[in-house]
């Protein structure tokens, strides 16, 4: 039984087919990576699955329920959470507050209770703060809790986004280039983190340019090129697939040839 199922998803931008007829599925606890050259439509695919863009064609099923074109905040309630390729951090808040904000669905309550700081409201804040501190420890940002989020390094912000996304206790987690801008040590930490989260039964959909990481942790890989799925399978099979080498590595190979000539 798949937890997240994508069926024939597609979208056009100004007559241009950005993504077309993409289908695949994720089982609980599975790590699926979407790879492809720049501009292949990976982030667009993410935006459609997470409700940021409305797909023109196809369906998204979450645990059997049709959630196509459902707004992101309702998807969040159903256990789908994500990070962003170009960071979407709450800049004027502290690192801790960013992680606490991730607990929104657990901590929200009547506005009047919040205005008058009633005990119930303060209790909700305390609980989500405790949860947030634990998550920050988990992603290695425990010491930075009281800093302004804007002051963190790029790699640290990537981890903060993961912590914020985990705060939802998601069933499906979409990670858009979580290791971008990270050094080797940080990449390995993220690597372990993703594996540990998946081990808890969370399905992870990953976009990542670090091929070593993708090959190491993915159960399954989907390859996009020009918005279409050109291959999918296990990492070992994908790395041998001639179409993938042509589309994905071919671009680099061609560049290399040009550079040589």
């Amino acid at each position: 039984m798949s937890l997240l199922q994508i069926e024939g998803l597609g979208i056009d931008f100004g007559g241009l087919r950005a993504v077309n007829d993409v289908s695949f599925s994720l089982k609980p606890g599975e790590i699926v990576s979407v790879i492809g050259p720049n501009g292949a439509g990976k982030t667009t695919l993410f935006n459609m699955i997470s409700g940021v863009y409305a797909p023109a064609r196809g369906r998204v099923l979450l645990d059997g329920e049709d959630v196509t074109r459902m707004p992101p905040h309702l998807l969040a309630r159903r256990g789908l959470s994500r990070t962003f390729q170009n960071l979407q951090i709450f800049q004027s808040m502290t690192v801790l507050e960013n992680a606490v904000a991730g607990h929104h669905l657990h901590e929200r309550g009547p506005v009047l209770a919040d205005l008058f700081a009633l005990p119930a409201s303060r209790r909700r804040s305390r609980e989500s703060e405790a949860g947030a501190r634990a998550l920050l420890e988990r992603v290695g940002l425990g010491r930075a809790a009281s800093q302004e989020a804007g002051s963190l390094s790029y790699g640290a912000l990537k981890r903060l986004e993961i912590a914020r996304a985990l705060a939802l206790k998601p069933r499906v987690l979409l990670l858009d280039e979580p290791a971008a801008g990270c050094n080797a040590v940080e990449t390995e930490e993220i690597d372990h983190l993703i594996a540990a989260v998946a081990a808890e039964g969370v399905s992870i959909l990953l976009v990542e340019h670090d091929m070593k990481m993708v090959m190491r942790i993915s159960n399954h890989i989907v390859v996009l090129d020009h918005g279409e799925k050109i291959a999918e399978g296990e990492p070992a099979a994908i790395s041998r697939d001639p179409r993938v080498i042509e589309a994905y590595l071919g671009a680099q190979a061609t560049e290399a040839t040009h550079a040589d000539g």
Partner: protein
Amino acid sequence: MPELLQFLLSGITVGAVYALVALGFTIIYNASDVVNFAQGEFVMLGGMITVFSHAAGLPLPLAALIAIAATAAVGVALNKLAIEPARGAPVVSLIIITIGASIFIRGATQLVFDKQIHRFPAFSGDRPIAVGGATILPQSLWVIAGALAVFFGLWLFFTRTLTGRAVLATANNRIAAQLVGINTNYVMTLSFAMSAAIGALAGVLVTPITMTSYDVGLALALKGFAAAMLGGMGNPKGALAGGLLLGLLEAMTAGYVSSQYKDAAAFVVILAVLFAMPQGLFGRKSTDRV
């Protein structure tokens, strides 16, 4: 029927002024993504400077030219002193800056000139011309002709001249324009100068009909912005159509509903347009990128 025709004629006259203010908004918005709430002050300056230059003994055409040139200089100063230093500021800041500029210009005008209501003689006399049972002032024809001339002139400028195309390119994609060697700072300055001059021209044309004083700018800015929005922000054709439509609407409301609420009609329609089609009549749809 003559009644309806009368309302139509006065609506088109007022609408032509709104269209000119809206065109001014559009030019600056396209070049810099700034909505200039001081746009109405340009109209006020055009009228006031003409009044005082004329009163000082200059012939009317020369006084009008001086007013237009001086207002264009104010537009350039506004860009150099207030808009350029604030580049990259959030929209809220830019709104406050241009509203601040509008209040500042109003305050300065009241100090330099006075707080009285003024007018100068109409260009071709004040004898109404009869049109099918209704009448129109010769000055109204000047206003309408002025709006059409400006619109046509802008069209030529944007399609036939290199500078005009540079402005369009900047409006389309600022960074790309810089990359191909367009001096975008110059384009912005030029846009403010043009926009201010067009506003001043509107002031020169309409003052013999509506009269002017230091505080007429704000209402004009709001109506002009409303017109620009009605037509679709950033679209010159939309500005023209939006201005005329708003003018007609006001004239009809004043004539058939209540003259007290003619200004209300404009805002009710604007709210309705914003809710029903936020892109305006001629606007483009845009997608947020994340």
